[in-house]
Structures are given as structure tokens and as C-alpha cells.
């Protein structure tokens, strides 16, 4: 004979607790924390490099970048002049709050306006893990297809903004902007959508201004 012992606990409670502590810490430090998620190859690192360069002229910025095995991304990002730390996750397909907390420890006493977190390239696993970020931005490139949001609804639904990348290639791949917007709208109605090309700088100014505007709100 068996009986039930009620538990009622979040399975990711441990992560949620750390994320909550981080969020509190960020609020006290007045740090605006932006996490970026996307599939591999959608241009996160390129966009982040440009973002650090441009927003770094106005604000104190730093970035942590998650990658399965290499530290190439950190090297690329460091060229922007910003402080960058790499989190190598090994076989883990996503970042967890504790990894972020460890990675940013050296900057705990440092005044920072913006902290960017580049997640591992993956549109599935990162969706379940709160990192204490102020804003979660999901990226997808014009080459990936307009229905990406509907294929990965959970990550889009947990995000606060969508950035469509590589728009310099939009014509070449016959990207249907209206279809892409409708696809986002179906899984996360009302979510802001920005369009950029880190290569030609198109839309970069709007993106940087938009980030600055969000920063004002904290």
C-alpha cells in the first residue's frame, strides 16, 4: 500500500532562487542585464560585438558569453574593448543562474550600466532557466525562415523582445517580413520586434537607442 507525500516544489527551484538573488543584486547595482538567445549561427556574437562597441561609447558595459567548447566568441567580443568573460559549459546546452553568478564575481564591485549575457546557441533548453536578467532578447536571422517563432514558441514566449538579424540578406533570401511579424505575434502578442544588420549597421542605431530607453526604466 502506498500513500502520497505532497511536495509542490518547482523542479528548477535551485536555479530560480539564485536567479532571484541575482535580480535583486542587479537592481541594487542599477545594472541593466540583457540576455541573448538564438539558434547557432543567427549572428548573436556579431551583433553583440557591434552592440558593445556602440553602446560602450555611452555606457559602462561588460559581457559574459556561454559556449559549449571554445572561447572564440570571447576573443571576438573582447575586440570591442569591453570586459568579457567566457563560460564554457562543456556538454551543457544552456546557461544556468549559478554559472552567471560565478562568471561575474570579479565585477561585483565594479560599476556597470549594462551586462550582456550571450547564451549557448540553442532555442530550446535556455527557455526554462531564469538568469536574473532584466530583459531576454531572442534573435533570429532572415535566413532561418519566417516561421521560426512558431517552431520554438516557448523561447519566444519567455522573451521580452525579438531581434531579426542579417536583414542585409532579406532580399536575397526573399524574407517575408509580414509573415515573420505575424509568426511572433501568434506566440507572444505585443512583443517589440527590431531589425538589424550588424554587417551594414542598418537598424543598429534604433537597437542601441531602444536598449538605452529600456535602461532608463530601471
Amino acid at each position, binding site marked *: *500500500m*502506498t*500513500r*502520497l*507525500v*505532497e*511536495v*509542490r*516544489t*518547482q*523542479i*528548477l*527551484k*535551485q536555479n530560480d532562487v539564485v536567479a532571484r538573488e541575482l535580480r535583486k543584486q542587479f537592481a541594487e547595482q542599477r545594472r541593466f542585464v540583457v540576455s541573448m538567445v538564438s539558434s547557432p549561427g543567427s549572428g548573436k556574437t556579431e551583433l553583440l560585438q557591434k552592440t558593445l562597441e556602440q553602446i560602450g561609447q555611452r555606457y559602462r558595459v561588460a559581457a559574459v558569453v556561454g559556449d559549449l567548447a571554445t572561447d572564440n566568441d570571447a576573443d571576438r567580443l573582447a575586440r570591442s574593448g569591453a570586459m568579457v568573460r567566457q563560460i564554457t559549459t562543456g556538454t*551543457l*546546452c*544552456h546557461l544556468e543562474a549559478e554559472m552567471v553568478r560565478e562568471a561575474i564575481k570579479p565585477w561585483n564591485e565594479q560599476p556597470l550600466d549594462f551586462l550582456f549575457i550571450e547564451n549557448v546557441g540553442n532555442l*530550446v*533548453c535556455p*527557455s*526554462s*532557466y531564469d538568469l536574473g536578467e532584466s530583459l531576454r532578447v531572442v534573435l533570429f536571422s532572415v535566413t532561418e525562415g519566417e516561421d521560426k*517563432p*512558431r*517552431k520554438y*514558441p*516557448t*523561447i519566444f*514566449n*519567455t522573451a521580452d523582445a525579438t531581434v531579426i538579424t542579417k536583414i542585409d540578406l532579406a532580399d536575397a533570401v526573399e524574407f517575408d517580413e509580414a509573415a515573420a511579424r505575424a509568426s511572433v*505575434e*501568434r*506566440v*507572444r*502578442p*505585443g*512583443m517589440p520586434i527590431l531589425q538589424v544588420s550588424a554587417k551594414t549597421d542598418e537598424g543598429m542605431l534604433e537597437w542601441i537607442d531602444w536598449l538605452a530607453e529600456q535602461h532608463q526604466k530601471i
Partner: protein
Amino acid sequence: MHELSIALNVLDIAEQTMNEHPESELVAIHIRLGPMSGVVCEALESAFTIARQQTLYPEVELVIEETQLLIDCPQCRKHQMAISINDLRCRTCGTISGKIVGGRELEIAALEVRDEQLDDTLSRSTDADSKTE
């Protein structure tokens, strides 16, 4: 594939809870999983069968209750089922809503345990009953 991490978390929490119930044996873990939790049922089930082998409960079962995706429909003015996770329109009236009120569950609901002592007592009393008959 973060389901292995999730499975390990489930087993960790179960182990901690079982420490408070040393007299009981863990039989099954009941969890609630929403379609918007980011976790795939089948993947979690296979990950769980691997993860449990490294624990004190290599035989423990995982019982998954799948919850429904509910939105707060501005038109119907109540909680309604959404069409699907990639189409957040109300199943009844078709109005879209960004307000998800159910379907993100990723939680342990309960542990199913067997109490040795209780079983002993029961079987003894059954023995006694049969003797009386």
C-alpha cells in the same frame, strides 16, 4: 537536451524530501508538466530512466501529469484553453491573448511512498482477521 539536468533535479529534490521520511520507501515521483515548460515529456522519461540508476532509488517510477495551456481570454473574460503553444488564440472565440495562466508548470507534485511499518501492521491485522474467520 536539458531533460537530463531536469531529471537530476527531480531526483535531488525527491532525495531531500525522503530524508525527512526515513521510515518510508520511495515508489514514484509525481510531477506536473505544462506544454509551455520547455520540457519534452518523452525526453524527460528517457532521461529519468538513466538518471535514477545513479541514485538510491534505481526502480523509482516517474508519473507525469500533463497540464493544459490556459490563457486569460479578454473576449470571453475568463480562463480558456489556447489552440496550441504556437497559436495562443482562444479555442472558443479565437481572440489572441498574451496572458498565459496555465501551462508553464514544471513542478514536483508529490512523492508516492510505501511505509514498511504500516504495511507490517496491516498484514498482521489481516492475518489476525483471517484467523478470526
